[in-house]
């Protein structure tokens, strides 16, 4: 029987390249990186092949189907609720034995299995050669060697998938269990009133009911995996690059200083490379604004439309696009840190410090992700399995200044401070954000009691992976574009709204709606040394953080001349600017973040409490920063 359409689930240990394969086959954009636990939900996409259709589902990484983690529960439930036609087990050639364990368990349960032997390129570099034909013969199923991140022979894979789906149930390899286990399996099968309880269900019943036998079963599978690996694998052990690097990266004394230098260097690079590009974009938009102010009226465009285009749209867009280079560079750096596998070393170095303030070392990952986008930070919190750790990660990662905020911060800092001290000011702001996360964790610990089953830390330490330049650039470009798309409408809309509020009613600027709102709040702002323009910018930043800068662009274009950076420095003192940034960094994360907090925790009161909490914190920090700063100036 030939099937017209096939469903195929990608199953494998964490970090073996399931999502890389999925993206390569389907053109999807699942998160890729060199650490365990990136994929947290099932994701399905269809592919057409020779008039037939295959629907692939990418799944989180698992070590078994026994519900030892949230991911395993999810995968097992998914497979039971919607059994696929074929299970595609991705096996990491770098770690054949442990990966085969999962392949054997999948084979025991689902029968129709294809093995994709991934990362054979990296395996080769480590002196590992695997006889895949022999493995296929021993297992009785297709084994396809591949490099998911390189040239991929998709047709060979599709053919194998259809062949396995179409064939009659074929005898495949079965794990030999010791007699005591076999007896228990037979007993479990007999106990069920339905005749012919599938063997794997009986095995599962034994595993769940008897801890002693469970160890025997797992041990037998591992013994089988080890024996298979021994027959198919030739290994010439060499001291790998990873061993050499880790001797320094994880060094007891030098590990942490090296980490700080790495982060400082990467962030410094972001600033120094992106600043000239930002200036260029700024200049381009200034020129466009000027040009439309002079030429459009001559073409008969009404004054109001000229004002909307030049002072609303162009200056708003210019202000936002000006920090696009920073954002692109940030994505680049972020990609490097996570795709090399360095992020795992950071978690290793930081865990003890993190646990001291009630955090799991793995929380570093959502927190770092939060610096790119709070929404992704919150989503990355799913790698923490305990409810308490997740709550803290979700709340704390929204205090990471995201790339939108960082862009604004970098822009303001470089406008107000000379190059040397700019880096220090930036570091001070980042340190403040870290302190805030610690505070949030501390408060959360007082309010929520940690559940007894705290997240296990145990995870693999992957070999280093040199990011592929093409992939790196494509990914950075895609993320930057995605970011642009995400903010495009908001930016255009907020530019228009702010332009409207700042142009009407016509007359002196102080009469406009925007000025009236700002002026009404000025007494409050005075406590922080913030003038009404800055307050208006904060209000405009609530739906999307980047609008704050857009708004400043629009406000000052209508009252002044020259590039935004120059205008700002002539209106605002460095201390007020710093205070503004402290408040800006802390108050209400963007609307999308607030909504994601709700979606992840399914709890409006926590989401709303986090908004109030952030306002309270920002007011406190603003008061502190301004009043302490005044003492020194």
């Amino acid at each position, binding site marked *: 029987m030939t099937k017209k359409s096939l469903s195929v689930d990608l199953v494998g240990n964490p970090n073996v390249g399931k999502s890389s394969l999925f993206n390569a086959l389907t053109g999807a954009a699942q998160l890729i990186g060199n650490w365990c636990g990136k994929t947290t939900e099932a994701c399905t996409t269809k592919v057409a092949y020779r008039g037939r259709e295959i629907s692939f589902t990418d799944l989180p990484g698992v070590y078994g189907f026994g519900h030892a983690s949230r991911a395993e529960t999810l995968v097992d439930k998914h497979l039971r609720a919607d059994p696929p036609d074929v299970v595609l087990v991705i096996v990491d050639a770098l770690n054949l*034995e442990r990966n085969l364990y999962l392949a054997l368990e999948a084979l025991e349960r689902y029968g129709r299995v294809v093995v994709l032997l991934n990362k054979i390129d990296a395996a080769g570099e480590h002196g590992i050669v695997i006889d895949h034909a022999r493995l296929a013969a021993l297992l009785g199923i297709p084994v396809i060697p591949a490099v998911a991140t390189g040239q991929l022979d998709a047709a060979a894979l599709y053919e194998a998938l259809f062949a396995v789906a179409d064939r009659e149930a074929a005898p495949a390899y079965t794990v030999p269990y010791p007699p005591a286990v076999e007896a228990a399996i037979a007993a479990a099968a007999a106990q069920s009133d339905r005749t012919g309880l599938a063997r794997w269900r009986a095995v599962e019943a034994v595993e769940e009911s008897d801890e002693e036998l469970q160890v025997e079963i797992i041990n037998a599978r591992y013994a089988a995996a080890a024996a298979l690996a021994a027959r198919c694998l030739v290994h010439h052990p060499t001291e790998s690059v990873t061993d050499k690097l880790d001797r320094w990266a994880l060094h007891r004394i030098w590990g942490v200083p090296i980490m700080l230098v790495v982060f400082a260097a990467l962030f410094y690079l972001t600033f120094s490379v992106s600043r000239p590009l930002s200036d260029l974009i700024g200049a381009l938009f200034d020129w466009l604004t000027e040009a439309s102010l002079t030429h459009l009226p001559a073409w008969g465009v009404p004054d109001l439309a000229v004002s909307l285009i030049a002072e609303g749209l162009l200056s708003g867009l210019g202000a936002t696009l000006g920090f696009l280079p920073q954002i692109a560079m940030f994505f680049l750096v972020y990609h490097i840190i996570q795709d090399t596998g360095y992020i795992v070393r950071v978690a290793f170095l930081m865990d003890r410090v993190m646990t001291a303030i009630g955090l799991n070392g793995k929380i570093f990952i959502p927190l770092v992700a939060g610096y790119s986008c709070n929404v992704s930070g919150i989503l990355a919190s799913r790698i923490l399995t305990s409810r308490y750790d997740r709550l803290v990660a979700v709340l704390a990662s929204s205090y990471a200044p995201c790339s939108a905020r960082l862009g604004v911060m970098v822009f303001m800092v470089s406008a107000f401070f000379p190059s040397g001290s700019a880096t220090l000011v930036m570091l001070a702001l980042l340190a403040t954000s870290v302190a805030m996360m610690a505070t949030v964790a501390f408060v959360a610990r007082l309010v929520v009691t940690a559940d007894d089953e705290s997240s*296990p830390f145990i995870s693999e330490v992957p070999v280093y992976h040199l990011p592929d330049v093409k992939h790196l650039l494509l990914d950075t470009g895609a993320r930057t574009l995605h970011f642009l798309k995400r903010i495009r409408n908001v930016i255009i809309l907020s530019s228009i709204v702010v332009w409207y509020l700042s142009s009407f009613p016509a007359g002196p600027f102080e009469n406009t709606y925007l000025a009236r709102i700002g002026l009404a709040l000025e007494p409050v702002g005075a406590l922080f040394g913030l003038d009404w323009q800055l307050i208006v910018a904060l209000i405009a930043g609530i739906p999307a953080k980047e609008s704050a800068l857009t708004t400043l662009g629009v406000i000052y274009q209508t009252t002044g001349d020259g590039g935004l950076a120059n205008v700002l420095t002539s209106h605002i003192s460095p201390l007020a600017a710093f205070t503004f940034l402290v408040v800006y960094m802390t108050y209400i994360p963007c609307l999308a973040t607030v909504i994601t907090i709700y979606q992840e925790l399914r709890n409006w009161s926590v989401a709303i409490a986090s908004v109030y909490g952030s306002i309270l914190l920002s007011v406190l920090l603003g008061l502190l920063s301004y009043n302490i700063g005044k003492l020194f100036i």
Partner: protein
Amino acid sequence: MSGEITLDMAAEKDALKVTRIIGKGKARLRLLQMGITPGTPIEVLRRAPLADPVEIAVRGAKLALRQAEAKNIAVVKEG
């Protein structure tokens, strides 16, 4: 068993063998599924700056785990 210690006490670079997994439930299953089963050779590669977590080598893979988790792995020195 004579000479049995838990992995959190083990010295770096010693050749060790797993004797049993202490504890129960998900944490125990996790260790077993990752290949830390009785009889498996295991080695502590290094400890982090504050002596926690530890990096271990087992079945050709490198794993990071906390001292608290290492406490659940009973081992004996080999040879």
